[in-house]
């Protein structure tokens, strides 16, 4: 099944350095082209557990970031927010180490969907995309040497030598596991169903144009996959649609 994958730094800042710790969690968006036509998308990031579980909290998180400047008095707006939202603080704390490579990052869907089998059985689950190369981060010395484009240069270098592979899996919820809050991580002992292997074999020849035109959305589902009571997929879809509009209006840049 052909796939198109978009890997991205966090923040959304187009010129942000790969070596900036604020670019973690990184993003992975996957479009699977279905055998009978059409497609379905998976949108994930590189931390198991999202910052917050509600749209209102996410807006407050972004407002706190935007309101914080180098001259802000302590506690700054973002420090106040993180103090009141320990799961968001945990994500920030655990995202400080720079990744060695996109090929050594695990990605997590964080939002729950309902998977329905041929007998009609419904199970809630979250996507996990696990690197075949294993998870690895840079040490302090390597981080200090990391260039502004090291992640994307590494990506091109690795793909030139062979596919970058990930296992695509779904972590299934046990009864009682919350499905409406992507900031609550389910325990590791939950059953994990392997769906297949994703192999990245080439950089898209029209990469620059494609990254502007592609609009991934977590609500681009297919038969057997449904929305759960998690409010984020619909919210993300609406925000992404607006983001695509803004991106289309932004000046072009070179990478």
């Amino acid at each position, binding site marked *: 099944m052909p796939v198109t994958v978009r890997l991205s730094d966090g923040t959304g800042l*187009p010129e942000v350095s790969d070596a900036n710790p604020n670019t973690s969690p990184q993003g992975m968006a996957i479009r699977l082209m279905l055998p009978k036509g059409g497609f379905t998308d998976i949108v994930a990031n590189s931390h198991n557990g999202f910052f917050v579980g509600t749209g209102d909290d996410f*807006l407050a998180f972004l407002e706190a970031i935007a309101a914080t400047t180098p001259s802000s008095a302590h506690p700054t707006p973002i420090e106040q927010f993180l103090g009141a939202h320990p799961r968001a603080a945990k994500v920030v704390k655990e995202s400080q180490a720079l990744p060695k490579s996109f090929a050594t990052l695990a990605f997590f869907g964080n939002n729950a969907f309902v998977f329905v089998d041929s007998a009609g059985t419904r199970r809630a689950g979250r996507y996990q995309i696990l690197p075949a190369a294993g998870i690895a981060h840079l040490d302090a010395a390597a981080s200090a040497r990391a260039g502004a484009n090291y992640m994307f240069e590494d990506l091109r270098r690795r793909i030139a030598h062979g596919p970058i592979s990930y296992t695509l899996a779904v972590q299934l919820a046990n009864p009682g596991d919350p499905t409406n809050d992507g900031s609550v991580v389910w325990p590791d002992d939950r059953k994990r169903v392997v769906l297949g292997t994703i192999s990245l074999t080439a950089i898209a020849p029209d990469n620059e144009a494609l990254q502007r035109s592609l609009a991934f959305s977590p609500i681009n589902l297919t038969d057997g996959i449904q929305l759960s009571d998690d409010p984020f997929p619909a919210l993300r879809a609406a925000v992404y649609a607006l983001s695509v509009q803004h991106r289309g209006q932004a000046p072009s840049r070179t990478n």
Partner: protein
Amino acid sequence: MRCMPTRIAALAALLLSAPAAAAAAAQAKSLPEQIADVMVRRHAPSAGPRT
């Protein structure tokens, strides 16, 4: 669909002080619009994620 909130916001700007009008305009926007606005305000001009 967005014309009516915009017109309401414009009317509010005539009647209220500027900060109050800004707050009223924000209230007229949906949550996704407010999230997109703050991201653009923080990042502008943005060409989207670096990919």
